């Protein structure tokens, strides 16, 4: 049990539980789902004790997820920092700026630009294009009809995962992501770039993660921190998200126009 949880979360949890009996039921539902998972191998043992789940944090996550599900189009600019771990455990940060332009269920452009790499992922409902603009290479492969399926296929067939894929999973009610966490706590009020948020912390498998959810009627994720507990150095990635929930989408938003000297290359499948 985390002291922080006791100090900050318990009071709020009690208050909410008293006013909303449903929350207790949700917490109870969450518990068996978490307990059914195989125990993490390398990490410290964690138990899905009901005490570790603050229903207020689960509720906030579900509320955010439901809101994300209502967004048909959105664009996000993110600022990221990802830690790499050297063999001796030393950590190095690589910063980046990503841009998402999304139209559910079948279109996105995701620009991933770090200080070390630039990639563009374009999906138009039929094909996925992986573009390396600075190298002048691109590959085009057939893709399933939805974003979710495409992300899964990209990962399983090609070993490609995109930053913050969670955005597309939280919003999928069938996945019930909120029920997968082993612990959930309310950290408290916080601001991200001047926006009032509530901060929450979760543990899920070998990953600890935190999320800052905007207060008010647009519960958007404004910041996400993900910690890999599997590696002894516990590298983390941080992303701050700047949202536009009603972006203008030109008709050719998901069309790919390679540079004149760009070369089409193949994509190795696994």
């Amino acid at each position: 049990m985390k002291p922080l949880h006791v100090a900050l979360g318990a009071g709020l949890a009690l208050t909410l539980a008293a006013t909303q009996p449903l929350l207790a039921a949700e917490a109870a539902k969450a518990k068996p789902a978490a307990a059914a998972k195989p125990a993490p191998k390398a990490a410290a043992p964690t138990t899905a004790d009901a005490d570790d789940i603050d229903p207020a944090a689960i509720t906030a996550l579900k509320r955010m997820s439901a809101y994300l599900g209502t967004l048909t189009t959105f664009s996000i600019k993110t600022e990221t920092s990802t830690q790499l771990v050297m063999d001796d455990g030393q950590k190095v940060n690589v910063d980046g700026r990503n841009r998402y332009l999304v139209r559910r269920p079948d279109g996105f452009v995701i620009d991933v630009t770090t200080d070390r790499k630039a990639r563009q992922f374009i999906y138009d409902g039929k094909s996925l294009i992986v573009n390396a603009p600075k190298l002048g290479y691109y590959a085009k492969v057939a893709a399933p009809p939805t974003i979710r399926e495409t992300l899964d296929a990209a990962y399983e067939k090609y070993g490609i995962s995109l930053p913050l894929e969670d955005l597309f999973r939280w919003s999928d009610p069938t996945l019930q992501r909120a029920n997968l966490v082993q612990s959930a706590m309310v950290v408290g009020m916080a601001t991200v770039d001047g926006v009032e948020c509530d901060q929450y912390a979760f543990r899920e498998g070998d990953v600890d993660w935190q999320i800052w959810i905007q207060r008010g009627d647009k519960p958007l994720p404004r910041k996400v921190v993900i910690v890999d507990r599997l590696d002894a150095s516990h590298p983390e990635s941080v992303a701050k998200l700047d949202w536009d929930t009603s972006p203008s989408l030109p008709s050719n938003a998901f069309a790919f126009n390679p540079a004149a000297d760009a070369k089409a290359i193949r994509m190795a499948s696994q």
Partner: protein
Amino acid sequence: MLRKHRISVMAAGMLLGAITLTPQIADAARGGGRGGGGGGMRASAPSSISRGAGGGGARAGGGGYGGGGANRANVSGGNRAANVSGGNRGTNINSGNRNNINTGDRNINNVNVNRNVNVNGGGYDHGYDWNDNYHPVARGVAFGAAAAVTSAAIGSMIYSLPPACSPYAGSYYYCGGVYYAPQYQGDKVVYVVVNQP
């Protein structure tokens, strides 16, 4: 830091007698780097919760740093949380192993290409892209410290081309007797040695 890694990588190279190219890529691919001629980066923080802890897949599939690697996805996130989110551990392990077998086979026949060039300095996305090139130090060693060689095995891969290459027949490159085809391995660009196109 770089010097330290360079030294350790060089030492590994001397012990092995030669540093092959493909193990370097394999190391990069699994986010590991302990084995073979690799060195440098061993893990990277996941960029999404769904894809989970970095290196998790590699360790699950190969039983540690020295074992079989999974794929590049592990560099940016292993499959641990994919399991949590309903993914199938067996599937993940298989995909990792498949990838490893592919590159592993190439390892066996791999021959070093010695261009004896210091590529540590580099520039954006070519010479100093840790994701594309895994680690500038390791890459420099792969090119700079390998034994002299006259040919490269078909199918072996490198992260960036040796100097003095010419474009050849569309997207191929011809570099001192060796033909390379660029391709994506995950979202990394690698150059695969091919027969003359």
